[in-house]
């Protein structure tokens, strides 16, 4: 293992897509970066996720972040010179009744105003986009569709960021666990790892579902809760459909991957927060039943694997980003609540510009930890999984 540097401008805790993207961007701006990951890269939610990228959200913040993030994904292969497995087959959001339709219309108006190409589909048009869907079986009265939504390969993307970060001089240390953080008065002093101490001006908490424990090391309380999420994949079959299909009401999402396998998930009824990892039969049964109802031809396809990961869930299903009041230099980049892959390009860009150029766009204020203090919380409702 290579030696760890004991002084850095920024120490990043967590080697998922957010930590690695941030390492790349900061290193490119000549910051001295050390990233610590307790396992291997992608061992957290990043390596377990569906990696769908969607711009159809109900809150402005998420919609704006997602639109700008996809623009970054679109140029990323060229910028890094490495493959990230981007495919834009669209997202089809199933709408089940009139009340959902009125929400959908409002969302589509807001999304269009932000410049997104998105439309409302009639039941007949659903079959034109994804022929294997059973409109009656899904109880659909329509759908919304955005053709530039899609999918990115989480492993390729994270490894590409990591490789680019290293070539710009960042140090990435896998199998290196952060065990403590030292404060000096009201500012960050250093990070303690199982391989020694690193002093730093900034410490970024990008530890996914473990961010709460990291924040506790400096006495900061995060409202985040870990939730087990299950997901399955089938054998490879011939290309059947391009779009990711999701429903906010049933919580299901599924898509066909580049290699031909169908991948998807659904919430397990009555799941409680906590670090449970064992996959359940309840999930398999519930997912298979719902999927067979949505897309009957898939009944004959074999499931080959199921696994679990965690969502790092906040009260309003929006991420917590930016510097913590009262602890100078302590930066949050967590609470992604099930959509941290697709928002990562923009979130890490904003944080980079904050640390390097001291830029504070309004969105950074709106997503600060302080928003939970005695203010009204506007919840993102367009969530699945």
């Amino acid at each position, binding site marked *: 293992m290579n030696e760890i540097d004991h002084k850095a401008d920024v120490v990043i805790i967590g080697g998922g897509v957010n930590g690695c993207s941030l390492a790349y961007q900061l290193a490119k701006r000549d910051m001295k970066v050390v990233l610590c990951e307790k396992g291997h890269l992608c061992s957290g939610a990043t390596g377990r996720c569906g990696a769908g990228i969607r711009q159809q959200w109900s809150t402005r913040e998420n919609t704006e972040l997602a639109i700008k993030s996809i623009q970054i994904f679109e140029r990323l292969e060229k910028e890094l010179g490495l493959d990230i497995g981007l495919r834009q087959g669209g997202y089809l959001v199933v709408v089940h009744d009139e009340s959902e339709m009125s929400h959908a219309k409002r969302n589509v108006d807001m999304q269009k105003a932000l410049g997104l190409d998105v439309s409302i589909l009639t039941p007949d048009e659903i079959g034109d986009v994804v022929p294997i869907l059973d409109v009656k079986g899904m109880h659909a009265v329509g759908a919304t569709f955005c053709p530039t939504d899609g999918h990115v390969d989480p492993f390729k993307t994270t490894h590409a960021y990591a490789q680019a970060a290293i070539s710009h001089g960042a140090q990435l240390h896998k199998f290196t666990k952060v065990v403590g953080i030292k404060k000096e008065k009201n500012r960050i002093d250093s990070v303690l790892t199982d391989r020694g101490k690193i002093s730093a001006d900034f410490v970024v908490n990008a530890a996914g579902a473990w961010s709460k424990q990291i924040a506790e090391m400096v006495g900061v309380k995060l409202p985040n809760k870990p939730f087990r999420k299950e997901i399955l994949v089938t054998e490879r079959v011939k290309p059947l459909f391009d779009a990711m299909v999701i429903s906010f009401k049933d919580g299901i999402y599924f898509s066909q991957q580049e290699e031909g396998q169908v991948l998807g998930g659904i919430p397990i009824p009555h799941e409680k927060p906590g670090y449970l990892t064992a996959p359940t039969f309840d999930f398999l049964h519930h997912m298979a039943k719902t999927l067979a109802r949505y897309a009957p031809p898939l009944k004959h396809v074999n*499931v080959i694997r199921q696994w679990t990961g965690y969502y790092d869930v906040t009260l309003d299903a929006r991420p917590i980003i930016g510097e913590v009041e009262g602890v100078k230099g302590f930066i949050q980049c967590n609470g992604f609540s099930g959509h941290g892959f697709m928002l990562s390009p923009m979130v890490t860009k904003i944080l980079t510009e904050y640390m390097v150029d001291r830029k504070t766009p309004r969105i950074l204020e709106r997503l600060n930890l302080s928003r939970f203090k005695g203010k009204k919380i506007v919840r993102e409702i367009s969530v699945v999984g």
Partner: protein
Amino acid sequence: MSDKIFICRCEDLTQEEIEQAIDEGYTTLEELKCKLRLGMGPCQGRGCLLLARRLLCQKTGKSTAEITLPPSRPPFIPVSLGTLASDKDE
């Protein structure tokens, strides 16, 4: 016949590709899985993980005991969605 040696038949991975990834620093089976999809095929690594572990031992000088196998994930044989969807009392 080509002289390629296939280690993971499901994912079409040769000994050369795996050795190259090990040289790039992917030095555990979990990392090779993330990098190359090693062991992610329909046989779930039954055909390749032990062979890949042997390559890892040779290249890194670690003993087999030091290289843990990724957890095996259910279902342990492929099962159709239709079967999984059926209710127990049907």
